[in-house]
């Protein structure tokens, strides 16, 4: 078991989980920074890609075997969540990727910023904040990056609906027009 494998990470930090289907390590948000620092020290010097993935609340159908030994289909509700995904590589050892995920709820989404560990997360975490609405604890400069500051909402969320006219802003013209339509102003 080389030092640069997910097994050594899971052995060092038993609270992290291995997601076989996604091929990723799920980090607990609380000590994500500690784990990241350990990873950097053990050779993962390059964090390539940072992004978010939004999952809505979904009903999942599952086949289970009940007590009587019969197969039946049950429906269970899977809570919505946002994953913040990190792709790590090692430039020194030329290996990778190691995929990390921080999992957080959709309401008041919060994750631990890994920018103090890898500077490459800086602009990308700002992008996740901007487009997914995830707050990063300890990010040195968390502002919107692609959308303008006054923009409301987070466009990459799956349930985002764009406003009818997102460039609308109150102007004197609109006020006068409304008054005119009410018969108050005669042009």
């Amino acid at each position: 078991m080389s030092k640069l494998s997910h097994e050594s990470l899971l052995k060092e930090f038993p609270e992290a989980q291995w997601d076989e289907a996604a091929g990723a390590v799920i980090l607990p948000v609380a000590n994500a920074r500690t784990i990241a620092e350990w990873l950097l020290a053990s050779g993962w010097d390059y964090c390539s890609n940072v992004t978010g993935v939004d999952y809505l609340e979904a009903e999942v159908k599952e086949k289970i075997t009940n007590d009587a030994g019969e197969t039946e289909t049950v429906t269970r509700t899977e809570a919505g969540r946002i994953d913040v995904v990190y792709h790590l590589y090692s430039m020194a050892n030329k290996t990778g990727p190691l995929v990390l995920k921080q999992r957080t709820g959709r309401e008041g989404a919060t994750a631990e910023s890994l920018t103090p560990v890898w500077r490459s997360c800086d602009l990308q975490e700002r992008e996740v904040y901007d487009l997914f609405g995830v707050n990063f604890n300890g990010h040195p400069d968390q502002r919107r990056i692609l959308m303008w500051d006054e923009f409301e909402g987070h466009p990459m969320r799956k349930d985002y609906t764009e406003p009818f006219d997102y460039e609308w802003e109150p102007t004197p013209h609109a006020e006068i027009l409304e008054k005119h339509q009410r018969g108050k102003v005669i042009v």
Partner: protein
Amino acid sequence: MITAAPNYELLQQEGLETSLLEISMGPHHPSTHGVFRMDVKLDGETVVELRPVFGYLHRNHEKLAENMTYLSSMPFTDRLDYFNSMTNNWAYALAAEKLIEVEVPERAEYLRVIMAELTRLVNHVTLVGFFINDLGALGTPLMYAFREREKILDLFEQASGARMMCNYFRFGGLRNDVPEGWLGRARELVDRFPAFLDEYEQLLCENEIILSRTQGVGNLSRELAVNAGITGPMLRASGVNYDLRKVDAYGIYDRFKFRVPYTDGDTGDCYDRFMIRMLEMRESVEILKQALADIPEGDIIGKVSKVFKPKPAETYGRIEGPKGELGFYLIADGTTKPYRYRVRPPSLINLTVLRDMCLGGKIADAVIILGSIDIVLGEVDR
């Protein structure tokens, strides 16, 4: 790892009331190569604070791609880095091919390498031209560069029908074979290209003005470059031997003999970044010579339907684009559309260290430093 701003005491000079000058450089400044803005604070001519502002060209490319089938977003990838549509296509095809497991025919693999290396020539030649333009040599060097670029764009047009928005790659191969006589014309171009490089190097590389303007300007240390995720020629100029064509050996790059130029990492200044690109063009010519000599006859695309439903999976495909590591992260959920589609833009991430490189320098140097990073706003803002 944030480098501290140098200590300026000018403000406290006795009897002199001074103040910092705030300049909003861009979004229409010609040196920003598009619509990019830098909020700069100046002490005289010295940069004491710099904040990049993004988003003027943002159209949420990722959301668009998540609402259409896999193949439909192929033409949109052309518009990311509009100088290098061929390599953008390849990175996306590489990521999607991991989902559907299709074999790419031999001839298509060779043509992919040929197109990618021609694209690298286009990118580097354009960058060097614009870089010299930023230095103040208006026109002539850029026109020399564009003359060569034009010849390559003609080849692209003959192969794909478009000069810049090529849309030439498909999952499992390429859209169509190159027309008759194309390979001969490409060989001729490749044979003549070194003569242009000789002339260009003779004109530029020892030019005294270029040396004094670029050497020791915008230094980037090896440690910061790696930690900040800098990739491509900019990383190698800071002394890291990391080229995905060698590391991942995607496609058939393991069959070609070429060298990866990188510096000893002493300075990592603008001159290094300029020179690395000149050297890389020579290596691209070498790869092109080998690929054009060995290319076999055969099919151009594997068996793939236009609309497909990959099994639920996650994949990350990356290539060595001319500007750095261009990656595509795809999540399939069993439908015809990607559930998540993410572009890892090298141009944006290479801008992480812009502030560190510019602080303490002159405002005129900030223009050169930005030019030497090599950004395209279509990719920065997506």
